[in-house]
């Protein structure tokens, strides 16, 4: 990413589709990058986008996808790690952006799916839905490589640059209210074991 100030804003960013963007992201993951997906629709659509052993799916602990991804990034500095998180989940743990800015792991990218609602609990608006801007928040926290994706092509470009150039980077995407296209299997031990094998920590 050559610019450090966002040009696209929340107000003029195109409203896109989470599953379509997740597929576009996964298509760029050609080096066994790890992906940690937050609760609910974010990880359901990651699951639907293909069974990668380097994917980790949370079942609770709302807000911890980004901290988990940070832990993976610190432990394996040669592997790029993507945190796939929803807007309501990030709101639960905004302080983690300051931790990431302080540690500045080059191998960490945050992809934020923002539809302004708690979709899985009945689509209630989040407190941030009307007045807040997540990219401005990320900038304020010190994550200076943060930008709104203007449209699908811009999302592809931002993801490509984040994976190639190093971060930390935050890419925010406005998304519609479409439900997830599948539901992740809910077996935490199996999810963890598969992930650890995918990261080369466990054999088999």
């Amino acid at each position: 990413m050559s610019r450090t100030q966002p040009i696209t804003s929340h107000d003029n960013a195109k409203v896109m589709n989470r599953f379509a963007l997740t597929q576009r992201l996964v298509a760029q993951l050609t080096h066994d990058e790890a992906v940690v997906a937050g609760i609910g629709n974010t990880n359901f659509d990651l699951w639907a986008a293909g069974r990668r052993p380097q994917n980790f799916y949370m079942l609770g602990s709302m807000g911890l996808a980004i901290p988990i991804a940070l832990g993976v990034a610190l432990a394996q500095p040669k592997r790029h790690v993507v945190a796939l998180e929803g807007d309501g989940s990030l709101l639960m743990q905004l302080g983690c952006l300051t931790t990431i800015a302080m540690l500045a792991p080059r191998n960490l990218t945050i992809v934020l799916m923002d539809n302004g609602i708690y979709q899985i609990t009945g689509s209630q608006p989040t407190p941030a839905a009307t007045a807040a801007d997540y990219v401005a928040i990320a900038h304020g926290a010190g994550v200076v490589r943060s930008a709104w994706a203007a449209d699908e092509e811009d999302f592809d470009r931002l993801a490509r640059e984040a994976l190639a150039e190093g971060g930390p980077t935050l890419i925010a995407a406005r998304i519609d209210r479409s439900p997830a296209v599948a539901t992740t299997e809910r077996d935490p031990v199996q999810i963890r074991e598969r992930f650890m094998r995918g990261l080369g920590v466990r054999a088999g």
Partner: protein
Amino acid sequence: MALADAQSKAGSWHGIVQQTLKNNDVKLVPYVPDKVFTPLIASLHADGYFTTFPTAREEEAVGVLAGAWMAGTRGAMLMQTSGFGTIPNALASLAVPYQIPLIMFVSERGTLGEFNLGQALVCRTMRPVLDALAIESHTITRLDELAFTVDRSIKQAVATQAPVAFILSPLLTGGKVFEA
């Protein structure tokens, strides 16, 4: 550091914790600070073996350690009693069901001379939460039992893929006293 100072630090509770973490390849130490942990935090920062940093909330440290462990690095978190009071959901929905050997050090506030009623009350929630989740915990009061308890329990946590909490009593650390 003068020899006498070095010997005195090595034999202190924080020197023993630092060395026992090293002996068990525990390298990553996120924390939310506590006054009692000040010398331990300073020693870890001064020791290049450790990657140690503050997090904004204790839950965040649970997440970082879960990710790091799954990616092959062992860690431990430092917090005070009130900090433990913020993490039951992360324990119940991440560390326990995913079988993560989360290693926790809690500086025990709220007892043995506490001056803050808020600390005294949240302290009473800590052991019931640990027990409800069947998380192994040890309240450590004696310097001569510290290395053995921490060393063996870290090994057990890793071998059995289960969290463990070390509650460091004011009897061990001196605690925090009200300075009028």
